[in-house]
């Protein structure tokens, strides 16, 4: 056993779960963490330990990306388990949770088992899955929450479709709370958003594109919160983007409701102005919002209203994007840009590194009741070593993802994963 001992020394340890932010060492044995801390090996590691010098870089739990569209089965031309895993590894993501809007949808045990088998075969990063809330994501009949959950579904969502029918949503929440399961909603009133291409406003008017009013988000959220109050279910609002929605969640949390939410980097980095020129790479669902909303998202992250940052990785090939805006599919690839875009909030909005890393690790981990997301003895050695100051330029063509649909091409950023460690294995390393 002893030859598998490895010490990562000279690292700035960031463990949001314990509040640790200090220079120190992590000792792992095979695939598990043995110990961590500033005072490990005061006289240097013993000779039977392999030593890795982290050069003062940050060492944090591996990132958990709780919102990834991995379109296999059904959309392998856009992304496969292999390409998504390579992208995740390059981005410092050690666990990703894929959404159920595959074809066929993840609404039965055999698809969950397919995902688990493909994840084992690929064996680069850890891949988990959501179960669909309703069969075929059609918003009417419930899937087998209990059985799917036993088979490995971490939580339930209909991906980018809201459960529009209020009675169905009530039953969903009520039934899920029976098993204490988390329901993840795409908060958008679909009838109000019908045919909409981008956020309603001056840019949509100039481009002659049908708008989605920003209130479509808070409307669905307010309805759902009433149902949460009625049923006591655990409810998570995916990718919140508007000031009004964040205010409502802030209020709900203050009232003690079991409510959480996440956002994605593009919502605190870009606004609808980026769509000028009909750039289909800026087409996302929910759409990019106004500057006031963008600032409200940052404020929500600062004050803790927004619990999680997820990439909302949604690969689209050229055939899905090189189209008139109305016909183009929504989505941005995000696994490889999640970390640098999030770290920009440290420099530009003054949010502490530990607070930002929490949104990428322990927060999604505890929300989904995973063991990952912390640096603690006995836990899986899933870690990322990153240089928060490393300057580089995002190049779409260099992305590991099979699809290159990023609006951040040629954007200079700071912060890069130097080494990604999954169960003690280095799945990505720039440390030489």
């Amino acid at each position, binding site marked *: 056993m002893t030859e598998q001992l490895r010490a990562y020394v000279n690292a700035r340890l960031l463990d949001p779960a314990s509040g640790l932010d200090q220079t120190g060492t992590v000792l792992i044995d095979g695939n598990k963490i043995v110990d961590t801390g500033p005072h490990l090996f005061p006289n240097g590691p013993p000779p039977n330990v392999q030593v890795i010098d982290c050069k003062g870089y940050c060492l944090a739990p591996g990132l958990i990306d709780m919102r990834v569209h991995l379109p296999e089965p059904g959309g392998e031309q856009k992304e496969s388990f292999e390409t998504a895993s390579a992208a995740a590894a390059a981005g410092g993501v050690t666990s990703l949770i894929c959404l159920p809007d595959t074809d066929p949808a993840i609404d039965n045990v055999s698809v969950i088992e397919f995902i688990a088998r493909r994840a084992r075969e690929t064996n680069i990063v850890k891949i988990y899955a959501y179960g669909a809330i309703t069969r075929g994501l059609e918003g009417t009949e419930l899937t087998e929450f209990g059985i799917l959950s036993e088979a490995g579904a971490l939580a339930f969502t209909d991906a980018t479709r809201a459960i529009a029918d209020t009675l169905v949503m009530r039953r969903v929440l009520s039934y899920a709370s029976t098993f204490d399961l988390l329901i993840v909603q795409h908060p958008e009133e679909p009838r109000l958003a019908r045919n909409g291409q981008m956020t309603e406003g001056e840019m949509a008017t100039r481009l*002659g*594109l049908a708008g989605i009013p920003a209130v479509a988000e808070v409307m669905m959220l307010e309805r759902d919160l009433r149902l949460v109050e009625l049923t006591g279910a655990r409810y998570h609002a995916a990718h919140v983007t508007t000031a009004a929605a964040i205010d409502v969640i802030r209020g709900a949390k203050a009232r003690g409701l079991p409510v959480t939410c996440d956002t994605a980097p593009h919502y605190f980095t870009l606004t609808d102005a980026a769509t000028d020129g009909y750039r289909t790479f800026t087409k996302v669902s929910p759409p990019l919002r106004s500057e006031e909303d963008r600032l409200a998202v940052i404020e929500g992250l600062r004050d803790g209203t927004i619990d999680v940052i997820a990439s909302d990785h949604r690969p689209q090939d050229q055939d899905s994007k090189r189209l008139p805006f*109305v016909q183009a599919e929504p989505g941005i690839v995000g696994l490889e840009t999640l970390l640098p875009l999030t770290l920009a909030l440290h420099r530009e909005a003054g949010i502490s590194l530990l607070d930002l890393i929490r949104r990428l690790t322990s927060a999604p981990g505890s929300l989904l009741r995973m063991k990952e997301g912390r640096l603690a003895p006995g836990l899986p050695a899933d870690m990322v070593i990153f240089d928060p100051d490393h300057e580089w330029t995002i190049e779409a063509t260099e992305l590991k993802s099979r699809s290159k649909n990023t609006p951040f091409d040629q954007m200079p950023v700071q912060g890069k994963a130097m080494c990604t460690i999954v169960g003690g294995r280095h799945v990505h390393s720039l440390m030489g």
Partner: protein
Amino acid sequence: MPNRRAYRCLAALADASYKQILMANPLNDAGLHPPRMHILGMEGIPREEIVTLLDLSESYIEQSRQHDKKSSILRGRTLINVFFENSTRTRTSFELAGKRLGADVINMSVSASAIKKGETLIDTAMTLNAMHPDVLTVRHSDSGAVQLLSEKVTCSVINAGDGSHEHPTQALLDALTIRRRKKSLEGLTVAICGDILHSRVARSNIYLLNTMGAHVRLVAPKTLLPAAIEQLGVEVHHNMRDGIRDADIIMMLRLQTERMQGSYVPSTREYFRFFGLDRDKLAVAKPDALIMHPGPMNRGIEIDSELADDIHRSVIHEQVEMGVAVRMACLDLVTRSLSRNDGEDAA
């Protein structure tokens, strides 16, 4: 040969300001294709360029009124009218404009079925491009589709209407019609009335009229106005009498009957009562106010039938005539950018 002086001055203009009227190609095409002039929209087009285009159009009005309407400026050039959306008048207008300048003109209607066969817009663009046309005029039901197509071809592209975005030649022909009647656009009050939300004509007119110093008012029920439209520099009215009071020009827009199903307005009867133009409402406009309509009209829905035919007030048929002249000027202008690239002189 029309006005030689204007001709030279335009060529100089084309050299100097590619990035604007030319709306030259963004992105990575710069190195691949020779620079070409496109006319994709009126947003951002400076005043001098609009004036130059209108001046050039004037000379083509005369040509179209002669017994021999044909010149040879575009001789040897190929114009393809690519219409992804049905249109009779705009297509005919471009066709005549091309033929009167001596170009070979092909009309191509890309039916919905071809699109269903899986051919994408870009495939269509590449196919057409391989036939070496000099100019494509393109109409498409999706906003932005014409710009996308223009980025993929090596010829010049003129937007003949894209979704709810722009219809630049319509705005130019409206401007030409107004200028001939009122001498100048500066200081005029123009009321644009009707379905602004879905109207590319309204957007192009707002940009052009604002640039030319006119005062633009919009009149529509709130359901037919896009969000934040006042940011485009217009005064918004929901009461038609307030909106057209003392106006010099009243532009009526077509209300498509599908809008009744979309809950935009309850009925044509109600629409006509509050937003249709009749003699009673017209009385509050200036006594010499002109009535315009981009066609095709819905008589009795947005405009009183008799009023539409009143030759003292309505310039609707004049607009159609100006349309041909303006399109001749646009074709003339864009092909000059090609001439330079060919290394030959069209003159």
